[in-house]
């Protein structure tokens, strides 16, 4: 017997409780008018009893690890007690069903509490993320000093298998990962920034409604393609193309060059940049444009000298959001970027990124206590805060800018 069966039983019992409550209230209705409609009496009975059973199960699992495991066959007690909890609360509620019992108010109160509990879950998730990365990172920083991690320039997370092994002492200097991440994000922004911005400007200022209706959904397809597809595209088309072109000019380009990964990532975030730019450009008040056009400026002059300066904070905010997406992107770089850390700014060389290293450290056999695994959580912590700060700044700028024109 497992949990899903328990829940199934609770469901069936709940349904029967509903009908029991309904029946009692229908009988009661014959002598005097009830406070609520009969179905509410059924609902309150079903809700009260199944919720107390479920609450009991949750309570059980919270304390199980600490107290109950000493008992023999302790899981059987769970089933028994759950049933008892259900029965007790259903009997108590059943007795309460009388003419003046405000069933509807009670049901609505429970519904509101449930809705509230659901919306608090968002906070729980954030706390969960926070705790999981903080705890493991803390353990990591107990073995490796935080300064070595943040400012060290040598990354080779392989721990020595034998004591006397040469060249695998396990170095955790993450600077090459940060530079690699930013190099690839920079290349991506060089592609996505101009293309996304220019296409947004063209679509919102020049294109006819018909063109816009066709082109906009088409560019949004780019946003819906899974990143693993972009990764495959990078490996199979873009990287060989770049390498071959480099050979023509006598350049030695690594087959996992930062350029290939960055380029493809740039393609991925074009629609992101263009849709945000589109929003902010459309938010620029029409009278600013009309004023500029009215004193004889051409359309492009209006765009360059009036619209873009006015929309600049919004555009910068949008670009920052795009950067945070590029930093956190995983599959493209896992497939197309390099595996070994390389401190370089040369886009033709292979670099590795924070996300690639997280994947490498965690995929495959792992012991949960080795610094190698824990390092992944430290990298996750850095990544989490980097994107959090970028998003915070970006949203702040965008909101400020919106207020300005509202």
């Amino acid at each position, binding site marked *: 017997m497992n949990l899903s069966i328990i829940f199934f039983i609770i469901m069936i019992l709940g349904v029967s409780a509903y009908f029991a409550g309904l029946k009692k209230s229908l009988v009661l209705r014959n002598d005097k008018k009830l406070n609520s409609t009969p179905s509410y009496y059924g609902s309150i009975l079903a809700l009260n009893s199944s919720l107390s059973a479920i609450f009991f199960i949750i309570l059980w699992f919270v304390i199980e690890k600490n107290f109950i495991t000493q008992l023999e066959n302790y899981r059987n007690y769970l089933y028994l007690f759950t049933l008892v909890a259900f029965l007790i609360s259903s009997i108590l509620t059943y007795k309460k069903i009388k003419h003046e019992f405000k069933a509807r108010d009670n049901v609505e109160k429970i519904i509101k509490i449930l809705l509230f509990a659901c919306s608090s879950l968002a906070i729980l998730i954030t706390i969960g993320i926070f705790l999981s990365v903080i705890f493991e990172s803390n353990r990591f920083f107990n073995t490796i000093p935080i300064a070595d991690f943040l400012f060290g320039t040598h990354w080779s997370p392989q721990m020595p298998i034998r004591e006397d092994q040469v060249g695998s002492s396990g170095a955790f200097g993450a600077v090459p990962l940060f530079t690699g991440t930013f190099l690839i994000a920079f290349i991506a922004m060089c592609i996505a920034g101009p293309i996304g911005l220019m296409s947004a400007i063209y679509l919102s200022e020049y294109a006819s409604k018909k063109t816009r209706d066709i082109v906009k959904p088409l560019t949004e397809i780019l946003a819906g393609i899974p990143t693993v597809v972009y990764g495959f595209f990078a490996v199979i088309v873009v990287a060989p193309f770049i390498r071959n072109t480099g050979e023509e000019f006598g350049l030695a380009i690594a087959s996992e060059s930062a350029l290939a990964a960055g380029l493809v990532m740039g393609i991925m975030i074009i629609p992101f940049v263009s849709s945000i730019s589109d929003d902010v450009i459309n938010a620029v008040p029409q009278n600013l444009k009309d004023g500029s056009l009215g004193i004889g400026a051409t359309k492009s002059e209006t765009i360059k000298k009036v619209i873009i300066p006015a929309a600049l904070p919004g555009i910068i905010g949008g670009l920052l959001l795009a950067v945070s997406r590029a930093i956190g992107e995983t599959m493209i770089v896992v497939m197309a970027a390099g595996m070994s850390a390389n401190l370089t700014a040369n886009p033709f060389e292979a670099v590795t990124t924070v*996300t690639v290293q997280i994947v490498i450290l965690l995929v495959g056999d792992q012991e949960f206590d080795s610094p190698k695994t824990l390092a992944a959580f430290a990298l996750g912590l850095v990544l989490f805060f980097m994107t959090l700060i970028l998003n915070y700044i970006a949203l702040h700028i965008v909101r400020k800018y919106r207020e300005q024109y509202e």
Partner: protein
Amino acid sequence: MNNVKSRLAKEKRFQIYGIFSIILALSLLSLLFISIISKGYTAFNETRIQLPIHFDQKILDPNNTEEWKTIRKANFNKLVRNAIDEILPGVEDRNNKKKLYKLVSSSAEYKLRNIVQENFSVIGTKEKIWVLADDDVDMLIKGHINRNLPEEERLIDNQELEWISILESKKIIKKFFNKTLFTSGDSAESEQSGILGALIGSLFALAITLILSFPIGIATAIYLEEFAPKNNKFIDFVEVNINNLAAVPSIIFGLLGLAIFLNFFGMPRSAPLVGGMVLSLMTLPTIIISSRAALKSVPPSIKEGALGLGASNIQAVFHHVVPVALPGMLTGTIIGMAQALGESAPLLIIGMVAFIVDIPSAITDPATALPIQIYLWADTPERGFIERTSAAIMVLLVFLILMNSLAIYLRKKYEKDVN
């Protein structure tokens, strides 16, 4: 005058930049599609060879037991080899013989075993059966290996090429629709590998995601939009959290799954159950944000009408506002599900990346997901797997297109209803 001319020229140039960047974006999109389709469309065919199999009683069931227990252990490979010897006779050299038998996929003997298991009466008879060809032969037949290359640069040598030409002239080597791709799990041999296992894994995970994130997301949206007290610090904090979660990189959710679901709660590794839970955390913000937008766009007169007739707040919301907003909420949910279907990074972290041959039958079985299968195959250098990767991508894209078109349809319908 000259000044005006140069200004107009600038204007023109600026427009051209705009058109150029749109064309660039669209041509990159089409390049992506073209390269994947052109690499993958051949994977929907597979090459089979017709073998005259003699279900020899002496090999299968020499003692005439007619029991599956003994027949099971028979040397079915011998049947395949005998048949190959029959159509391409006269090969004596040991090495050559090995090469000869490798024309046919190693799955052939399993196919024969299945045939016998289903029907013992074939024992003793002779039948012509189409069996899978080896992946290199498959590549040659599909034209991915150039026959005119010098021998040392070709995967198929001259001797094998000669045998294949004999088979072709006898018309017993042919391309069929690739059923294997859709009916089997992963395999080390590209001709025997399929996406069914990954597809089922994805479906299980998506089902979990839907069950968890749809009710919770909608409940959150309803609470925040309809019942939450205004100007409350706690509610503001909830909203900030939701917006932040929407921007957290997906791999971080994988770390959460690993630390909390796997290590703290001890749930099974590589299981679609955990995958679905992680994905549901990721899709929650999407569903909440779009459901709130849908609720916001319901005309207030609907709620006010219900309240005016004496309905309680909850009744007004659940009986009148939510049904109107439901198509909009579903649109958001479908878009969230499409994202979850294409997502792979968090699944990598919780271990849904492994070589799994069996097709998962429960949500706690180890499994992969479709995007992960694509990632695994993309890592394999063989030409046969490149083809299958592209085919798997096409299948994934078809699912995504279907889901998104459903979402667009619902949105259109909803907009019409509300107005």
